[in-house]
Each structure stands twice: as C-alpha cells, then as structure tokens.
C-alpha cells in the first residue's frame, strides 16, 4: 500500500515538474517565439546551483568535489538555483537575441547546451564532473524525519504549490499587455519593432523568465531525487518538454499542463508496462522516445494546434451602444 502511494506521489511530482518546465518553454516559445533547444541545460544549472547551495562543504578525502557547499536553507537555495538559470538565459539571450533570425537562435541554444555539458562533465571541480552531485539535503526532511512515502506526499504538496504560483504568474503575464507585446514579436518581429516595441527587451524578458521557470523545475528535481549527473540531461529530455508543449498546444498554458500529463507522465510510465518491455528494462528509454515521437507526429498531422490550443484574447465586455456601428465595407481582393 505504502509503495503504491509513494509511486503515485512520485508520478504527481514528475507531473508538477514537467508542468513547470513546459510552461517555462511556453513562455519562451509559445509567447515570444524563441526556439530554445536546450531546455534541459537551464534545468541542470538550476538544480546544480541549488544543490551546491544546500549541500554542506565538501569533505576532504571524500573524493567528491564541488563549489560553494554553503548549507543554506531551502528558500535561499531555490532563489540561487532560479537566479543562476535566469542569468544563463540572459547570457544566451545576449548572444542569440540581437540577431533577428530564429534559426540562429536555435543553433546558439544547441551549441550552448553542448558546451556547458562538456564543461560541467569534464571539470570535476565544479559539480563533481560526470559523477555529479549526490546526497543533496531535502527541504523539511531534516526536521520532520518522515518515511520515504510520507515524504513523497509532502513533497508532492510542496511541488504543487510551487507549480500553482508559477501557473498564476504565467497566466497573468499571458493576459497582460506585456504578454500581448511578446506575442506580437512572435508573430512578426520586424512589424512589432516598427510599431514601437523594444523587441530585443521583450524577447530577453521571455527568455529569462522562461529560464527561471525551467531552473525552478531543476531545483525541485534535484531536491526530490537528491542527486544529479550530466548523464541524465541529454537532448532527449529537452525533446520530452518540447513534445509536451506541442502535443498540449503551443501558446497555451492549459495545453502545457495537458501535454505534461500525456507525454511526461502517461507515455513515460505506460511504456514501462508494455508487454515484452518489462522483461527488458534497457529498452524502456528507446521505446519511450519512439512512442513520444509518434505522438508528436500524429499531433502535428491531425491537430497541429495541440489538444488545447491557444485561445483568442478576451477583452473587457463593453456595451455595444458605446461603439458607433457602421456597415462593413465589402473588401474583396481583386
């Protein structure tokens, strides 16, 4: 019984985390049209920085090396992780967002991801290289000393609260004139610029805010798993987040939620139970990617706008009488 509760809580936690990741990507790509092909790097930086902020100082002789080791309380560690991801987003934005071409951006994000992967993996002094961090302290656990299943439930509640806060903020952004201006840059960068929008600043904001979201997702991940190593942040993880957003509906936060559930939870887990797979666990990741890939292709073919598409902007209802009516001029093309 306890095992099942723990398992379901774990799924719920992954659901919350993937939700945060795909809403972050939605702010970057869905709102502002920024092709971020290295979602996972922001997640890793957020997780690592929160990890070294909450871990104690490295032990001489333990052969585990990392920077900082500040034993900070979790809210500060969360802040550090989120800030680090935001700064990285800013740095990549400085390189990539000056140019107007979106393919350029895609290439820069991909390259930055590879460089950071190599840098972190091969440098054992920063985050212990390819070995990665282990034994990261979990929030509340030191005080409460819960058994793993109860802790999973507690953490689920915690992750759900974080998700809810970020969800509300993302929707406020979406519905605001600022979100509208971001969408205009997505639709036509040059035109938005010609109508007085500082498109560089707008896209930089979307880039940084989205990176912060993804970074927070990374912090939650390292706290729940208590470990993180470069091997776990390959491009296929970025692909899962993209798949969730595409299947759910680009531009729509509700779509990001549905997509996270369908792709990251349902498909990720169900593939585990496919007949013939359970006997050969090494096949799981491959089959999983094939299934998710197929789902993306089917979505793009049959419902390109996603399960829950971006909805039309709503405006305050105004009394019809306050607007002068005029018969529409017939405006036909020649």
């Amino acid at each position, binding site marked *: 019984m306890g095992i099942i509760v723990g398992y379901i809580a774990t799924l719920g936690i992954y659901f919350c985390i993937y939700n945060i990741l795909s809403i972050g990507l939605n702010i970057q790509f869905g709102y502002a049209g920024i092709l971020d092909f290295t979602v996972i790097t922001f997640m890793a930086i957020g997780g690592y920085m929160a990890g070294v902020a909450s871990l104690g100082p490295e032990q001489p002789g333990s052969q585990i090396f990392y920077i900082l080791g500040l034993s900070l309380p979790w809210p500060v560690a969360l802040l550090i992780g989120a800030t680090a991801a935001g700064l990285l987003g800013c740095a990549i934005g400085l390189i990539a967002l000056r140019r107007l071409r979106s393919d350029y951006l895609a290439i820069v994000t991909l390259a930055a991801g590879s460089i950071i992967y190599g840098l972190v993996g091969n440098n054992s002094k920063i985050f212990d290289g390819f070995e990665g961090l282990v034994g990261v302290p979990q929030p509340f656990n030191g005080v409460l000393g819960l058994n793993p299943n109860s802790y999973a439930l507690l953490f689920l509640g915690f992750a759900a609260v974080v998700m809810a806060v970020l969800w509300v903020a993302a929707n406020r952004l979406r519905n605001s004139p600022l979100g509208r201006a971001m969408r205009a840059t997505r639709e036509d960068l040059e035109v938005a610029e010609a109508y007085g929008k500082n498109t560089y600043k707008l896209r930089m904001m979307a880039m940084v805010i989205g990176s912060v979201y993804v970074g927070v997702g990374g912090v939650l991940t390292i706290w729940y798993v208590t470990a993180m190593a470069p091997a776990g942040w390959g491009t296929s993880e970025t692909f899962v987040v993209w798949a969730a957003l595409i299947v759910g509906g680009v531009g729509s936060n509700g779509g990001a939620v549905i997509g996270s559930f369908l792709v990251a939870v349902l498909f990720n887990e169900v593939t585990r139970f496919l007949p013939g797979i359970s006997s050969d666990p090494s096949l799981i990741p491959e089959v999983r990617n094939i299934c998710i890939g197929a789902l993306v292709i089917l979505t793009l073919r049959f419902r390109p706008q996603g399960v829950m598409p971006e909805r039309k*902007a709503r405006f305050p209802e105004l009394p019809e009488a306050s607007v002068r009516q005029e018969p529409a001029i017939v405006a*036909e093309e020649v």
Partner: protein
Amino acid sequence: MGEAPLLEVDGIRKAFGGVLAVDGASFTVEAGTVTALIGPNGAGKSTAVGIIGGALAADEGRVGFRGDEITGLAPHRIARRGLIRTFQISREYPAMTVLENLMVSPMNQEGEKLATALLAHRRYRKQERELVLKALDVLADFGLYGMRDEYARNLSGGQKRLLELARSVMADPVMLILDEPMAGINPALVSHIGEHILRLREAGVSFLMVEHNLEVVERICDHVIVLAVGRTLARGTMAELRQNEAVVNAYLTGGGVDAGTAR
C-alpha cells in the same frame, strides 16, 4: 511654409552587395501634407522607407524628423517619436485577433511593465478599457468592427490593408509612411482608403506614401517626389511633374507604372 520640414532625408545611400538601391536620395516632407513617393520598380522607394524607419542602416546620409536627427536609431525608438511605417506586403499579426492587432499598437502601456503585469493587474485595467473603447471605435471607422474577434490571418487582402491603417492609427502617429497601401486591392477600396488618408490628414497626421497609381496620387497627394535609380529626380505637384520631361522619361523607360504592379 517658413517652418522646418517634418521629415528631412539628406543624401541617403544604400548598397546591397553590388546593387546601389538608394544612391544619394534627398527630399523633405512638410507637416500636414500627403506626399507621394513615386518611381519605377526598383527605384529604391522601399529601401528608402526602410532607412527612414530604421529597419535598414544607410551607408551614408542622414534622416531628420521633427528637427531631430534619427539616423541609425532602432526602429522602435523612431516609432516612439511618432513616425510609423508600414510594409509593402501587408503584415498583420496572423494568429492574433483583429482587435488584439490594434491593442498592440499604443505605446508605453502601463501593463507592459513586468511588475505591473505580474503583481498589479488592476493598475492597468482602466487604461486597457479605454484602449479597447478606442480600438473598437477605430475598427468601426474602418469598417472592420464585425471582424474584431476574427484571427487577422482570415481577413481578405483588402481587409488586411484596412487593418494595417487601423493598427497604425492606434499608435497615435505624427507621421505615417505607407509603402504601397493600395497594392492589389479593388478600385472601390482604393478610393475608400484614399478617403481614410484624407480624413486622417484632417486630423493632423502627415503622410509619405509610396504609390504607383497616378490617378490616386493626383487626387489625394499635395506633393510628389519622384525617385529613379536611387536618386531624387524631381519634386512638385502632379501638374508640374507632367511638364517635366525627365520624369516622363523615367517612367517610360522604367515601365510597369500604369500596370500598378509591385515588387
């Protein structure tokens, strides 16, 4: 007309690789006028518009607006000074509604500040309501009210031209530069757009307008600037230009004018 001109273009030059698109063009636009910019295809009209609006960097020359130099400013800074330009091919925000297309335009909206957008959405509600009212009014003026909730990509070619004007009006411009605002639309709508332009001029907006249709130019434009191979060939009223042999020749050799085709 003792005052300084509203827009001053002085010796702008721009090459694309080996092609000299604009080669030292100079002209001015007086406040309160509708000024036409005409010339054969490839004369450099769109390139000149791009340079004035800041989208293209000139190799040489300077642009002044309301007495200030705006050469080399980012396009959004130029727009914020009240100079709005449109594009030769209409470019709406396709996946946004018609009303939303208009709502993007007003400058410096309170809700465009991050803190206000996230933490104090009540603070911009009043302004938002006022802008919606204004936008609906403008849509009614342009006969697009019924389309307000439609995605802009679903409009017809003519309606997109109207949307472009409506969206520009929402930006409260001092001056509008229109690059072939009537290209590819039916004659009834051409005169309709002409009336809108004259109405806006009465409301105090000045215009520079690239246009091939000389009848339209004659009817609504106060001054005409002729551009040929990147240089200012002549300027004056349409009647004056009809007497100008160089202008007639540029058109005869340039071709394509009466057809009203656009590059």
